[in-house]
């Protein structure tokens, strides 16, 4: 099913939501890529971290939301630690996740997780995963 | 309390004996019961009537201007020093004068006393329903006895207005500290009175102030009581240029109160003396409070009542609010 293209106003609204939830000024980012250079998960992402912000700046928020990148962000704060413009990318990724979750599109449901994973994984890991994904 | 008075007298004797000072300013009992008035002693004997207790006192700092020379003698070293009894609020006023270079700190001997609020006897009388004959204070409870009734009152209820808004209960730079400073009183910022006025319409505000100002008799008591008003010659007494004309008109009243308030904006220590001495009860504290509130809000100042080397209007920040 092709995604319905959103109107300009709707897009502006999502951007505003992202800024509100993250508390970050997304227009600060000048795409130096330092976040991506040091990101251990970037290799797995379909859209590189710095590009995620670029997409939002360009109004391509749907692309950003559809991408897998924010679910792969492990919130390790390496990007935030090094960002020369003091943009907290981890918060922007969180905003994208939160928007999806609040809009009823969580990444996983509890029943989807294999028993063996529940068995092996420390409680802390399970809790964090559900805090981020559901 | 007597204890503290004794300690003070001991110190005063010491000061006079060592000839450090030519004058000591403190308090003594006034004519009315529980009234405390300024006392000036040129030797120890004269100081013996001085007293420290918990009843309302006027601020003493302004007398320093007179006692340390002509008005605004400026920061010039004097051969003889003046001693002064100081609570936190007095200390703020003294600091006002020092920061304004009106007096030199070196010319002063400050005897500091801790304070956790003074009592307004008038309030006690009101609550008691008659004139109190005896008032005793025990920590936070005050016992007031009249001829007929007696009553226990919570000290909070009869605190001096000034003390309710106290921003400094410590004396930070005293030469002699009679007792250890207490912690600063827990005072939350209360601009509700100012906000009440802000809520009115422009029309209502103007009417409010017109009614207030029209009462003004231009006695200048507010100016004379104020430590921030420390010019050698007040702008209101200058005829060229004539900022304030002598006619009694509403517009002149507005002019007067505007200038007075602006001249202490950012410098007012919120002592409340101006309002107290006003014979026609103009709420001058509201005017000063408005400036204080705005300065704190607009220029990110924590407490716009503590005299600092550079005043809020003597500096700027590049990120001051943009309105125009």
């Amino acid at each position, binding site marked *: 099913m092709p995604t319905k293209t959103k109107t300009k106003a709707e897009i502006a609204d999502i951007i505003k939501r992202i800024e509100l939830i993250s508390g970050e000024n997304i227009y600060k980012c000048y795409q130096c890529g330092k976040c991506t250079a040091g990101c251990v998960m970037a290799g797995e992402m379909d859209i590189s971290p710095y590009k995620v912000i670029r997409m939002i700046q360009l109004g391509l928020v749907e692309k950003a939301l559809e991408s897998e990148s924010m679910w792969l962000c492990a919130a390790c704060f390496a990007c935030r*630690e090094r960002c020369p413009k003091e943009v907290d990318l981890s918060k922007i990724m969180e905003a994208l996740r939160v928007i999806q979750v609040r809009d009823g599109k969580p990444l996983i449901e509890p029943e989807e*997780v294999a028993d063996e994973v529940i068995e092996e994984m420390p409680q*802390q890991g399970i809790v964090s995963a559900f*805090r981020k994904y559901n | 309390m007597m204890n503290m008075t004794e300690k003070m007298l001991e110190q005063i004797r010491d000061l006079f004996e060592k000839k450090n000072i030519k004058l000591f300013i403190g308090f003594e009992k006034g004519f009315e019961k529980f009234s405390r008035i300024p006392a000036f002693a040129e030797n120890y004997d004269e100081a013996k009537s001085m007293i420290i207790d918990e009843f309302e006192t006027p601020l003493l700092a302004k007398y320093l201007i007179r006692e340390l020379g002509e008005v605004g003698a400026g920061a010039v070293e004097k051969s003889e020093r003046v001693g002064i009894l100081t609570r936190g609020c007095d200390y703020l006023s003294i600091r006002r004068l020092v920061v304004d270079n009106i007096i030199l700190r070196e010319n002063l001997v400050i005897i500091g006393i801790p304070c956790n609020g003074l009592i307004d006897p008038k309030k006690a009388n009101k609550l008691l329903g008659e004139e109190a004959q005896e008032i005793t204070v025990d920590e936070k409870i005050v016992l007031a006895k009249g001829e007929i009734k007696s009553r226990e009152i919570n000290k909070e209820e009869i605190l001096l207005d000034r003390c309710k808004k106290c921003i400094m209960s410590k004396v930070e730079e005293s030469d002699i500290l009679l007792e250890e400073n207490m912690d600063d009183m827990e005072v939350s910022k209360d601009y509700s009175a100012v906000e009440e006025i802000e809520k009115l319409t422009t029309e209502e505000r103007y009417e409010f102030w017109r009614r207030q100002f029209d009462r003004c008799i231009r006695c200048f008591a507010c100016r004379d009581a104020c430590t921030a008003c420390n010019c050698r010659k007040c702008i209101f007494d200058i005829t060229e240029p004539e900022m304030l004309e002598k006619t009694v008109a509403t517009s002149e009243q507005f002019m007067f109160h505007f200038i007075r308030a602006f001249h202490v904006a950012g410098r007012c220590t919120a002592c409340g003396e101006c309002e107290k001495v006003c014979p026609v009860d103009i709420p001058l504290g509201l005017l000063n409070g408005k400036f204080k509130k705005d300065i704190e809000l607009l220029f990110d100042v924590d407490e716009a009542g503590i005299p600092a080397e550079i005043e809020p209007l003597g500096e700027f920040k590049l990120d001051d609010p943009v309105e125009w």
Partner: protein
Amino acid sequence: MKYSYFPGCTLHTQTKNFNDSIKITSSLLDIELEELKDWQCCGAVYPLTADSTMGLVSPYRSLQKAYEEGTDLVTVCSACYNVLKRTNFAVSNDAQIRKKLSEYMDVDEYAGESKVLHLLEAMRENKGFEKIKEKTINPLKDLRVAPYYGCLLLRPSEELKFDNPENPTIFEEFINSMGAIAVDFPNRIECCGAYVSITSKRKVKGATESILKSAAKRNADIIITSCPLCYHNLAKEQEQLVQSDYLFKPIPILYFTQLLALAFGIEVGSCGFESNRIDARPILKSKNLISGGDAL
């Protein structure tokens, strides 16, 4: 020095061996840990949303309790540490959040007066590393220990102020004080992929593998950590690596206090080695740090 202790969910369940080793060792360092009464899960991740403070309620409560106890709060799990310390930072710097939380929970306003400390920080504050040196009766001679910091201890540094975020040294100090050799491996500050492993195990492979290989390259005998999730991801990855890469030699992963217990000469049976996912005892034995009879 007395502290309130916040063990966190994992230490109370899956990784009891970690918790036990903490209790044994800390008392020997004059660090008295009293478990916070009625502590509550910290939430595992610090909420990164500016528009909602709900996630802070739980850590705020624990902090507030510690404050009521009149003590600073010590925790060990990296995640708990990150959440609690950031919450403390937030409430001490943001009056609005503070007000919101205390009003919501109907408690006295708490403005970050208590400190949140990682056990390592508590050691540093109490001259712990010198004390370790004194109290080590079984010096871990020739043992090459790779300290894996991970992310949650170090970042964001402006809030945690745990150590230099790019070139930390506290674990190294710890290791050296036990007489072991600290292995400097570059990936010690990189992330293991954390919770991402719940859905896509293969996606954290890159992260975990490079950490392990980086430690292996520097000939590490042991990796130590303070984070159960890192522990899990690194151990899990090794199970895969052993199968796919015949040259790869597994490196046991220990919680740092387990090693300390060993150095303090605590009976091997009480060090919790038997619950480790990769058995460390053979290598410890080969270094003569545990005797043949003790092992296995």
